[in-house]
């Protein structure tokens, strides 16, 4: 059983990702890989949420929630890199 909001989330992510990518690739950002990983895992989680409504609901549900946990770790890693770099720059 799928929900409309989950479809909207996935569609919005798919539509905005190319635009986000065009700006993101030009960024000189510490922890860029971490952010990329976090964003990618969120996308996968969105896909799993939608898939959950059609097939293997327990598996895809679990994957969705694991995905959010991994994305949290990715964003935390990216944020840490930014914090360290900004403090290093302030010391310089």
């Amino acid at each position, binding site marked *: 059983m799928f*929900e409309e*909001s*989950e479809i*909207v*989330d996935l569609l*919005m*992510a798919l539509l*905005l990702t190319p*635009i*986000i990518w065009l*700006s*993101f690739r*030009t*960024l*000189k*950002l510490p922890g860029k890989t971490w952010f990329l990983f976090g*964003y990618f895992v*969120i996308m996968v989680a969105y896909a799993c949420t939608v898939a959950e409504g059609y097939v293997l609901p327990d598996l895809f*549900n*679990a994957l969705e*929630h*694991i995905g*959010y*946990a*991994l*994305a*949290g*770790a*990715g*964003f*935390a890693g*990216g*944020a*840490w890199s*930014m*914090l360290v770099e*900004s*403090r290093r720059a*302030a010391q310089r």
Partner: protein
Amino acid sequence: MSAIAVADGLSVIGFGVALLFFFLLPVDPARPYVRPIKAFLLAAMGVYVFVGISNTLEWAGITKVLDPYEDYVEVLFIPFVAYIVYAMATAQQLEDTKRGSELLRDQHELLSSIVDTSPAGVLVVAADGKITFANGLAQDVLGLREAAAGRFLPPPDVRFSHEAGGVTGVGEGLEELLDRNPEGRVLRFVEHPGGRMIVIDVRTEPLPFAAPGRGSAVVAFVDTTAQMRYRQDLEEAVEVRTEELIELNSRLEVANDAKREFLTRMSHELRTPLSSIIGFTATLLAGYAGDTSAEQKKQLEAIRASSRQLLGLVDEVLDISLIEAGRQIVNWAPVDVGMFLRGVYDSMSPIVREAEIDVELDAPGSLGEAVTDEDKLAQVLRNLISHAIRSTPAGGWIRIVARGDDGSVTITVADSGAGIAPEDLDSVLVPFGQMVGRPGVRAQESGLGLAISHDLVDLLGGEIAVTSELDRGSTFTVTLPRRPRPRSTEVSGAPEAPSP
């Protein structure tokens, strides 16, 4: 507790930690646009903190009150991320632009300092001929006036031309210059009212971003007025000095001719009474004019010896005068060199014996013939042998060695005498050059014998060289062609060991 509940808990922790780190990010007051970006970062992380907490509460069976709002909150995450990334990229572009502007300003200030302090005048002429930039020196030299920012007006009364006294104004002159020489180096004259004339060495270079055809160009110049004046003064001075030297040389030639003529006449005039003195002395010594005492004979012998010495000197003066005047006549004839050398050697034998010097002649019979003037060559060799005798003390040696090849004959006269100092080598073959302080040379040296030898060898188309070392002797080498050809004389420094 299921894996999903653990994952939700970890999700809350992960996004919560990320939220905390973003919260701790410092905000530079000089970059206020970082503040909204930071706010959106916190909001984006807050989305999944909220979702995680909602799920955890639900799994824990505490409450489901947040569940209806999850969808509305979660849908905000991707737009938040899109905004954050776009804003960060824009901020980065802004930073880069700002840094670029600062760099450009620094470069501009550096360039301005260089151009303003440059000893060259620099100006930029636009495609329409208008002057858009001129440094201080360019304004001063060309008399430019700054009418507005980036616009300089040339004065109407300053002339600018490719030659002194030109009639072109500065503006037209620059246009003409760029039309004819868009890239290169030329001289131009700038004439100010009141007669102030400046010569400038101009270089032009089209600006790289100028349109095809005659576009904007940089014109740089150096004031070369002082160098030009100095050059003109120098050229004038050289011209005046050259004329003076030509006149002086002409006067010297006249004086030299007069001296030569005087020496020739004087020598002729002296020869007659000297010959008479020698003749009458011989008559008195022979007793034709009556008996003479032993003391009188002794005195007469001294008169005859001195008269002969004086006659020899007069003859040498006459010889050198004739050679310098070009009045020596060369009688070319084939000469058997070996026989000729033996004759000269025999004629000198009495003098050599008297000096108690060991003389050796090494002249093989196979030397063959050379076309030369026998009398003059004999005079050369007598002079060289006489010099060697006078330079060599009793018990010393003299070697006369002759060798030949197909084209030339070389005669070497070497001695073990006093030698010649290196600083005197250059003057030893010059008239009277060897008279100045030559140690070890006997007093009767006139100073003309070697000079006459040098000139005669030159006249015979050969060359003479001398090598010597003090206290170890000298070696004179005469090289004569088998067939006569005119040659110059050469003097060299290092002594050579004489052949036995």
